[in-house]
């Protein structure tokens, strides 16, 4: 498992070398997104009010940002679960030309397929440690604040070696968690057997 320190905007070369299980730290410019932004753009047919060509890292996150002495101040940050945005995942990757999505959990098969086609990865945090991260994030700007609200607006962040994150979907369409699932399933059956619940157990059907 290799460790990489990447700087955005990311290139195909930057991301194709990443394999599931690798560790990455990220620098450069990115934007945040939750479901209201994707719904606003893809379901309600609005135009994204900024260019993602040089900002091709998306973080699924609803940060706490306050205004202090006329400047934005990041109070807390933690990537949120990507899987709930699967509906718009493939579209986001292709239409926004993303090279990396940062989020808790992972994305589904459709997004992973698009990531393989377009050369994009998904990375996931290994801790809940906002205080170890906020000093590595500079708030640059915000878009759609009035339309989507403070939490779900698109925030522009500049990252300074933010991490560590684990690569959970690589450009070959492999998913780290799928691999782990097989092992967990095997151990689950062992644990059930140890409790006297054998493989043939079936719930009495009540409904």
């Amino acid at each position, binding site marked *: 498992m290799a460790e990489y320190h990447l700087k955005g905007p990311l290139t195909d070369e930057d991301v194709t070398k990443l394999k599931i299980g690798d560790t990455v730290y990220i620098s450069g410019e990115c934007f945040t997104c939750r479901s209201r932004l994707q719904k606003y753009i893809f379901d309600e047919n609005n135009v994204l009010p900024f260019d993602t060509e040089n900002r091709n890292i998306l973080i699924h996150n609803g940060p706490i940002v*306050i205004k202090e002495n006329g400047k934005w101040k990041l109070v807390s940050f933690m990537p949120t679960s990507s899987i709930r945005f699967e509906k718009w995942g493939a579209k986001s990757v292709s239409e926004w030309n993303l090279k990396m999505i940062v989020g808790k959990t992972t994305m589904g098969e459709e997004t992973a397929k698009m990531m393989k086609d377009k050369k994009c990865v998904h990375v996931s945090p290994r801790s809940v440690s906002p205080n170890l991260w906020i000093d590595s994030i500079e708030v640059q700007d915000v878009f759609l604040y009035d339309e989507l609200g403070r939490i779900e607006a698109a925030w522009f962040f500049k990252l300074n070696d933010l991490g560590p994150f684990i690569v959970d979907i690589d450009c070959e369409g492999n998913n780290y968690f799928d691999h782990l699932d097989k092992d967990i399933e095997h151990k689950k059956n062992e644990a059930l057997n140890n409790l006297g619940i054998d493989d043939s157990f079936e719930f009495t059907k009540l409904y």
Partner: protein
Amino acid sequence: MIKTEAYEKALFETIKRGATEISPDVKTAFEKAIEKETILDAKKGLLATLDSMEMSKERENPLCVDTGWPIFYFKVGNNCELEGGFMELENAARRAVAKATELGYLRATMKHPLTGYDPGNNIGMNIPDFTYQFVDGDFIEMSYAAKGGGSECFGGTRHRIVAFADGIKGIEKFVIDSFVASARAGAVCPPSVLGIGIGGTANVAANLAKEAACLRTVGSKHPDPMFAKIEEDLYKALNSLGIGILGAGGDTSVLAVNVEYAYTHIAGIACATSTNCMVARRASSRIDADGTIKKMVSPNWFGDR
């Protein structure tokens, strides 16, 4: 009579403490998990999480960016008298939540379920949520719990009626299957505090599960050996699966398994689960009849456990 000023002050302090300070029992559970963790990346993740949580107290910022559903539990002495009555207690709790949101201790997370309207203060229809328990005495104890979106939205809260024909095996199979599905890829933010409610109607079981997840002291055991054995068996079983912190692999998948029960109908056993995320945020305070406010280290919702 306890003055409005006293309980409003206590409510605000309790919310702020719950949002920004790790509970001592959760901290102990983290330290134990760090000590026994054999997967290096998982150990680093647990350490980073604990470090960040300790920094929150100093920086007075939220333990996690998702500050959750605001939920209050009141254990009320039967002779407790509050200025303005209990409706004013709930109004004061709403004011305290709004103030904590304005000051950045809580994120404005609560929104309208259909329109997505964000009131900006975490106050809306049936939110915050209030639960009461009545006991002898003239005091009031209050607990604030923040139930995170991850822990609640990805199947960490489930319910099934188990037939008496399936008994404990059925209950344990339901719990293990549910937890594995909900913890996939770290969705419910494991290592979890897993609450299990057994018996009652479905909503009684679900409430017991939530209270067991949010209000039991982490590391405590049920006093009835039958239920303590289920807790211990499931704790061992779930920690043998290798799910680990945020589901990326590790030795600790649950910080605790807490079971609470109610008598049930001869027709079946309602069984519910509720996971609390690893930061397991809560805080409690007590106000005596003379208005003295004391911080409590544990909610005391289930007596000494």
